[in-house]
Each structure stands twice: as C-alpha cells, then as structure tokens.
C-alpha cells in the first residue's frame, strides 16, 4: 500500500506538470495575439464583412447583399481607371526609384571626401512630410509661376508654359516625379546596406582577372545584390501601391479622373459618400491586389534564394 501510494505520487507529478509546461508558451503569446487580432485581423475581417453589405452611413440601408458590390465594382469604369493608374504609378515609381537609388547607392559606397555628409544629406527628401513635398511640388510645377516651366522655357525646350497638373497627360507623370524625388533616398539607403554586405575582395579579384568596371558591377556585385534589390523593390512597390497624399493634395484625382488612384477613389467612396459597403469592396480589392504583388515578388525571392543555396 505504501509503495503503491508513492507510485501514484510519482505518476501524478508529471501529469500535473506536463499540461502546465505546454500551456506556458501559449499564455505568453496571448497578449501579442490579442493585440494583432484587435488591430490587424479584426479590421480586415470587418472590412471583408462590410464589403458584402450595402451599408451607407447616412441612410438606414444596411443589409447583406452578397457579392453585389463586387459585381458593381467590376463593371465600374471608374474603378478600372483608378486600378490602372495605381498599377502605372506603382510600376513607374518603383522602377525609377530602384534604378536611381541603385546609382546613388553605388556612389555612396565609394570612398570620397565628405561621404558622411552626403549620406546624411541624401535622406532629407525622405524626412520631409509628404504633404509638405506635395505643396512644394505644387509650386515647382505651377503652370504659371513654377520654376520648372521657367527653366525649360529659358533653355528653349518648350515653346510656352506647360500645364503640369491641369492636363490629363502630364498630371500623373508629374506626381510620379514628385514621388521619385521623395522616396529614392529610401531605396538608396536600403541598397547601400545591401552593397556593404558584399565583400570588396570579390570585386578586387575580378579586377585582377581583368574584368572591366561594368563587368565587375554586372556579373559580380549585381547578382549578389539581387536579394536586397528584390526586398527593397517589394517594400517600395507595396508602399507605392497605396499612394494617397500626393494625389490628394495636388490634383484631388483630376483633371478628368486622370490621376485617380485606388486610395483616393476608396477615400471618396468611404468618407465623402459614406458608402461603407462599396468602399470596403474597393479596399478589399486593393488588399487582394497587394497580396498578389507581394506573392509575385516572393516568388522571385524564393527562386533567388534557392539558386544561392544550390
């Protein structure tokens, strides 16, 4: 009996301990889970749910309508117009910023007098609030008094003033220029960090083997920089996709919807017209498109990492 009793105790002890030990980590993640759930998962799910309803804040309408919002969206010329502008903006600004940013990063990775100052100074455009940048570019590209028109006219490149924000052909490119000016430093810095992880000895070895500077860049440094490049471009693309402030301040989506992007269209539907249902369908579509873009980049990244491993 006494032996049996001791044995039961020995049996019970781990039984009591085991579940406690298993639950422990979960208890510790609960605050994080609750936090992420409250600020990220819940709003996304609520957005999805709202996109299936016809909720309009200023009217009693609030019923489940299934996929009607998405049907309306697919046949809405305004949506496709904005979708195309967003993709154009994302593609053009990401490409330009990557190319220019890479150039800046290559320069900044060389040793020269005042390099520290240049590296710090280059960040200034990125540190300026976007609304301020917007106002600044509003003045720079002003159709009547802007300095850009003045310079181009003085150089004889244009016969008369160009109406940068007032013509449908020029408005979006002008906004892209403003974005490139503002965000290229961010790309440059990310790529500079990537460049510094590549050992100098590799370039030097190639130089000894007689590779030209271009060859050294194209065949040695660029392939090694590719993962950084892809990650930086991914960040930039996702960020550029939700462009809002420049458009909102500079053109309000006009003229003739030529600068309307998904964010401004969604904002107008959600907060001006207060169509929470349709607006949520719009933002869900944005969400899905962003996921697709991320998956695209992820695919290339994965491929790249596999190649490195092989």
């Amino acid at each position: 009996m006494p032996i049996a009793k001791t044995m039961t105790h020995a049996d019970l002890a781990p039984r009591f301990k085991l579940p406690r030990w298993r639950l422990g980590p979960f208890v510790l993640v609960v605050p994080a889970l609750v936090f992420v759930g409250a600020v990220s998962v819940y709003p996304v799910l609520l957005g999805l749910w709202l996109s299936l309803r016809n909720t309009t804040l200023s009217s009693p309408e609030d019923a489940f309508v299934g996929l009607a919002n998405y049907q309306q969206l697919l046949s809405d010329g305004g949506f496709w117009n904005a979708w195309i502008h967003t993709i154009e903006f994302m593609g053009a600004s990401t490409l330009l910023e990557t190319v220019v940013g890479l150039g800046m990063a290559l320069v900044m990775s060389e040793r020269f007098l005042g390099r520290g100052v240049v590296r710090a100074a280059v960040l200034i455009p990125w540190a300026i609030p976007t609304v301020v940048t917007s106002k600044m570019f509003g003045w720079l590209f002003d159709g009547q008094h802007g300095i850009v028109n003045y310079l181009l006219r003085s150089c004889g490149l244009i016969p008369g003033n160009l109406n940068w924000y007032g013509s449908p052909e020029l408005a979006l490119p002008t906004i892209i220029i403003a974005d490139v000016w503002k965000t290229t430093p961010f790309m440059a810095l990310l790529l500079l960090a990537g460049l510094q992880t590549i050992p100098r000895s590799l370039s030097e070895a190639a130089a000894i083997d007689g590779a030209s500077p271009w060859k050294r860049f194209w065949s040695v440094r660029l392939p090694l920089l590719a993962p950084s490049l892809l990650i930086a471009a991914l960040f930039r693309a996702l960020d550029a996709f939700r462009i809002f402030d420049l458009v909102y301040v500079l053109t309000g989506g006009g003229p003739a919807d030529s600068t309307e992007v998904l964010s401004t269209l969604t904002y107008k539907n959600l907060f001006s017209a207060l169509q929470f249902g349709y607006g949520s369908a719009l933002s869900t579509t944005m969400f899905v498109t962003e996921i697709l873009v991320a998956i695209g980049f992820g695919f290339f990244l994965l491929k790249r990492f596999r190649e490195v491993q092989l």
Partner: protein
Amino acid sequence: MRFSAHLEYVDMHKNAVPPNTLSLPDLSAAGAPDGLPASGVNRREFIKRTGLALAGATAASTFVGPRRVWAAGPVELTFASAKFYGKQTIAEVVNAFNGSQSKIHVTYKELPPPSSSTEVHQTLVQQLARRNGDPDVFTQDIIWIAEFAAAKWALPLDEYFKDSAKDYFSGMVQACTWQGKLTALPWFVDSGMLYYRKDLGFNAPTSWQELIASAKQATSSGGVKFGFLWQAKQAEVLVCDLVSFIGSNGGAILQPDGKTVSIADEPAVEAVQLMRDLINKEQITPSDVLSWDEEPSRRPFTAGEAAFLRNWSYVWKIAQSDAESKVVDKVAVVPLPHFPNKKSAAALGGYQYGINASSKKREGAVEFVRWMSSPETQLRFATQLGLCPTRAAVFDRPEIAKEQAFMQPLKDVFLGAIPRPVTPKYPQVTLVLQSEVSRALTNGNVKEALQTAKEKITTIVKA
C-alpha cells in the same frame, strides 16, 4: 418650481455675475443676508437677494451642503462647428453666450476650417451616426442639410422657430427646409460672385458676352495677364461654379422633385460648353484653372494679374488689405453674368445651425441656437468675423456699413443665389459631377460627358 428657480440664481452668482454686483454670503454658512451692501439696492433686487440667500440656506440644509446646489447647475451643451475667425473666434462668441446667462453652459468643439469641408462632414457624420446626443448643436454646410434631415439626425425645428422663419432671407429658409420641415436654422450666407477690376476701363458685365469682350480688351491692351479666373479643379468648387453657369442659362442639375435629372438638357449643355469655350475658344481663362480651387485662382487676381474672378466673399477682405493685395480700392463685386434674357445665378453657400435629434437637452439647445441666430449675434458675426447675416433686417444695419463695407452691396447677389442639387445623396452626386464635368472641360465632349453624368446620377437618386 420657485425653489428650482432660486437654485438657478445661486448658480448665476457662482458662474457669471461679478461678485461686486451681487454679493451673497457663503452658502455653507447658510446664514442671513448680512453680507448685502446697504446702499444702491432697489426693492426688487433686495427681494431677489433675500430669496437667494434663503434658497441657499434651504438648499444647504436640505441637500447636505453646497455640492448639491452645484449639481443642479447649468445645462451642459456641446457645440461642434467648423472653424471660422476674424477679429474674434467662434469660441469667443460661445463664451459671450455662456456669460450672458446662467442656465446653459456650452462647450465649443472646434472642427477643421470650411476649406477642409470633407473632413468636417466626416467628423460630424461619425458623431451624429452614434445617436448619443453629442454634439447637441452643430453647424452644417448648406449641402448637407438634406442628408442630415433624411437620416433623421437633425431635429425638425418648426415648433420652435416657425414664427421667426419669416425674418430670414426666404432662399435661406428654403435651403434649410427638407420635405416641408425646417431642419436647420440660418447662420450665415455666402455665394459665388464676380470680382472685377474697376480701373481697367470697362463696366461691370451683366452677360457672359460682355464679360468675354471686356476680358479680351483688358488682356490685349496689356493691362492684365488673364481675363477671367474661376475654378475647375476636380473638387466641390467645380460643382459650385457649374451651378452658377447652368443657373445663369435657366437650367438646373436636378429638378426640385429630387428625382428628375436635367444635367443633359440644352441649357446645361450650353453652359458647360461655355465653360469649355472660355478656356479653349475665347482663351480668356488659362487652362491652369483645371487644377485650381479657390486660393490658386485668387492669388493672381489680388496680385493684379487678372481682370475678372469668380470667388466667395472672403476674397474681398484680402483684396482690400495693403499687405496682401496690389489691387486695393481697384476692385468691385457684382452678381455673376448670365446668358441673354436669363437671370444671374450663384451657388448658395454658408453654414447653418442644426440640433442633434438625439440630444437629451433639447430645450437648452433651442435656447442656444435662438441666441446664436438672434439679430445681435448675427451682427456680431458680421462685424467681427465677416460672416454675412441671413436676416434681412441685420443686413441693413449701419454697423455693417461701417465695419464691413463690402457686405451690403452683396444683398442682391445673395438673394439671387440658388442651391446646389438638393438630395440626401448629394455626396455621391457631387462626385459624379466633379468627375464628368472635369472630363467635359478637358476633352471637350460635353454632351457625352453630361449624358454619362445624367445616367449615373439618375441611378443614385432613384436608389
């Protein structure tokens, strides 16, 4: 009943009345009125004060100390309004109300300025949609009245203000009425108007043809760079300009029934074609207006570069300021021109009072709005903040002629102003108008764009 009235007096003493005009012994002492000054007190005052002291004494003994008396204090109201300012701010006017009586205490919640009207609208809607009575009183842009009324957020005011409605401009009362019910009380009026340079040797134009001729003459003689500036940015201001162009040809965007869309009818098409022609054919308007709202169009005018400008009343003050304007005393204001044999029209603007239908303090809110819309307060808003009165009688007061010389000549402009489409779906309608009219002005396919607008708006207002 009498008792509660005395409680209010106690409060008045505590809150507003300077201590030397009405001195009352400390309530907690609950004593006789021995602190009264002997001289300069008439009988009425004396009785009041005795009553006060007695009430104080009773209150102190009945409700366990003076804290209870405090709790029966003024009705607390909240008032949300877009930010306006001049020599005074809205907060100062609200404080004046708080100081003028003791029953009601209003807390002012400042919203963004009217130039950020989308944000003001959004904030108001979010608060009103909660239906928790906060804010009790608010001010609304004239274009939201139908929306707020249809959503039953705005309290119908007929039973409180039926008799005083006749004192306001009838157009304003009309704009404050939704489906036969007065749901807003007029605060101030504004409208689009034509500013012109009176030093350039032409008379004020009454028709668009005259304006075009004068503008051409002014630009070709080298006096100014631009003929006529207005606003065509894809924004609310484009709809304001649109309404005045279409109205000046006897047309309308939406018929008063709120269902029939007439934006693709002949008068409207002609009007939008004129807008396009001012830029492309007559070339008295630079194509830059396609991205200009109020301020970008105002700056060249006050810098002396333009002959004509369509804008709101705020420009007058700037045009007459030596620091900001090169055209001081060279500017005059008239109603906008019109098509042959038609009448001038301007888009009606301005903010109006509303009472939250969910407010639990209705009587207090009505009292506050009555004071805010009273002739004296309107006069104060006019002279101190430059906001044009909505009461005809106040408009003619000599103080206004002295302080804000520009206002009185504008009376006719305001009387001729017409509302933008009146429908609870206005926020959706205006987005369609902005997009399609901007398209018409950019590519010149006026009929096609207006037809599209008509179809889209019809779907919206029928839904």
